[in-house]
């Protein structure tokens, strides 16, 4: 999409087509001749894995929509008939339900790769922000999708999440009523969630196109975090990156298949096999695992901050935890991209990673559970504090006080320095 194109149509038909719609050239430049840094590691295959997951979710989703009925009295039953009667229905539904989890696993790896190697830094700010938008859309799509089976967790999850809006002063209640189309979550809510759940993946696909476009304008980052200097630093996307991507996509499918065939309900919640009942809330409501860190942040704010009460404070903190990602390119003041050359950053980063996992664990626990002598909610406060401190204090300050290790002159130099020429590894 950028720079010099090497595509030359070979056949007469190819030339005829090229003069009218240069789509083959576009594909060729994007997926064949596109120069990629030759030192990319396996973490860079997660973009391809995510593209595959998006396709899987859309295909299985369209199929499920052929059998699903978005009507509150029969939605649960229609899901059960998919599981029991529709040919291969059990397979397609388990692929879709576990696919959502796989999508998030892959996106988290993708995000953490970006965080570690500084992929958000100039000139990749727009690329990064598009990624944050995709992530937000994914969360919305996943949440609404989880409501559709109309089990207990679906129903109460929808109730709790839409109640976030009531935290806003004055306009909150009317907004919530507008969103759910009634005075409580009901058939109207289910119907609009189904409609939006069907729409969002196509919006995601659209933003993905922009994301890939932006990527091809600025080029890929790499584990060294230094710019590509010459052609020696790169290899053509096909066959080099393609062969790696396909291998890792298949390896990821093995992981995915493991869940679909042997642990299909491991990542779900048993209560969602009970039909929604507006009269009784399950003992422990927990969101799906991929929302747990944010859920912990929401519950960590159990105190008023000046005029902001704890409810609004929690909701703001939770949305803030995602919104802060969009400002990351300007919060990180370091000139060096890759964490490899940043000794203090490295420590802060890994603490951040463990902290994020710990937040997820806290999200799954009751707030009054005791963990190592301390209540879960207290741990959540500490963890939330570090989460924000990492973005708002550590990263801005580190850029000034940290002395990075010397950077290699070029990607090619670094490769030659560490490997004997000619040996594959």
């Amino acid at each position: 999409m950028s720079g010099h194109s090497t595509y030359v149509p070979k056949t007469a038909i190819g030339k005829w087509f090229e003069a009218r719609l240069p789509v083959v050239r576009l594909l060729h430049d994007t997926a064949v001749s596109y120069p990629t840094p030759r030192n990319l590691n396996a973490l860079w295959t997660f973009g391809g894995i995510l593209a595959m997951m998006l396709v899987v979710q859309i295909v299985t989703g369209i199929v499920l929509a052929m059998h699903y009925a978005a009507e509150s009295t029969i939605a649960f039953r229609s899901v059960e008939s998919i599981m029991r009667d529709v040919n291969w229905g059990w397979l397609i539904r388990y692929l879709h339900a576990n696919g959502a989890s796989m999508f998030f696993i892959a996106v988290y790896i993708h995000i953490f790769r970006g965080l570690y190697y500084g992929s958000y830094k100039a000139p990749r700010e727009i690329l990064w922000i598009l990624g944050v938008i995709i992530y937000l859309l994914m969360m919305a799509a996943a949440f609404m999708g989880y409501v559709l089976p109309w089990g207990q967790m679906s129903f109460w999850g929808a109730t709790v999440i839409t109640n976030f809006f009531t935290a806003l002063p004055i306009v909150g209640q009317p907004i919530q009523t507008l969103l759910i189309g009634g005075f409580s979550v009901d058939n109207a809510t289910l119907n609009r969630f189904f409609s939006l759940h069907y729409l969002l993946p196509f919006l995601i696909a659209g933003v993905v196109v922009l994301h890939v476009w932006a990527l091809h304008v600025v080029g890929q980052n790499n584990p060294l975090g230094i710019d590509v200097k010459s052609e020696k630093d790169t290899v053509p996307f096909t066959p080099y990156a393609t062969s790696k991507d396909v291998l890792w996509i298949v390896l990821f499918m093995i992981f995915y298949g493991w869940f679909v065939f042997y642990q299909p309900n491991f990542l779900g919640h048993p209560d969602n096999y009970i039909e929604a009942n507006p009269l009784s809330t399950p003992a422990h409501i927990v969101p799906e695992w991929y929302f747990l860190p944010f859920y912990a942040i929401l519950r960590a704010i159990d105190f008023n901050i000046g005029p902001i009460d704890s409810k609004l404070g929690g909701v703001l903190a939770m949305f803030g935890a995602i919104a802060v990602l969009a400002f990351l390119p300007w919060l990180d003041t370091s000139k060096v991209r890759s964490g490899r050359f940043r000794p203090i950053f490295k420590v802060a980063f890994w603490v951040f990673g463990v902290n994020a996992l710990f937040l997820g664990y806290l999200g799954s626990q009751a707030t009054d559970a005791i963990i190592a002598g301390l209540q879960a909610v207290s741990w959540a406060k500490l963890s939330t504090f570090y989460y924000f401190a990492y973005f708002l204090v550590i990263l801005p300050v580190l850029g000034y006080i940290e002395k990075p290790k010397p950077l290699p002159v070029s990607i090619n130099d670094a490769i030659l320095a560490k490997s004997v020429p000619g040996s594959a590894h």
Partner: protein
Amino acid sequence: MAESDTPAEPTRRDFLLHAAGAFGVVGVAAAAWPFVDQMNPDASTRALASVEVDISGVQPGQAITVMWRGKPVVIRNRTEKEVEEGKTVKLEDLKDPLARNANTDAAADATDANRAATGKENILVMTKVCTHLGCIPLDESGEFGGWFCPCHGSVYDTAGRIRKGPAPENLPIPPYAFLSDTKIRIG
């Protein structure tokens, strides 16, 4: 160890690429099947029950229509005149010479006897769905005194055989059996 040193390498590489390609194509094709097959009728549809109909109230010249597998099935108690009309038609005048009766041999002729119920020549049981494009023909109408399809003008006679119009086949007769003199099970 550059490629030029060992001339056998391009072959090995080609082989690997072809093997991977073939393997991938087979996998994608196999994975596609569940996504196609899911559109076929599901287990609950396939298991749809048979229908039992009481025909004791159906006088000669009357008919009732019941639903079976989502389609209307007409059960007509034909008058003697209608039976006679059905019998006198010569086979070579018929557009479709086959009986289209699920209860007889697939090659049976479209005689009136092969269309009517066995041993009860006045009773005609058939699926009332035009063999042209699936509309529902009207009872007791058309120039042959049988059925007339309002969509594209197909005309059936008193034994439900196509006589005129675009429809290619006689109205099909579903599998059915008499449980008693007045009770029929369709399906």
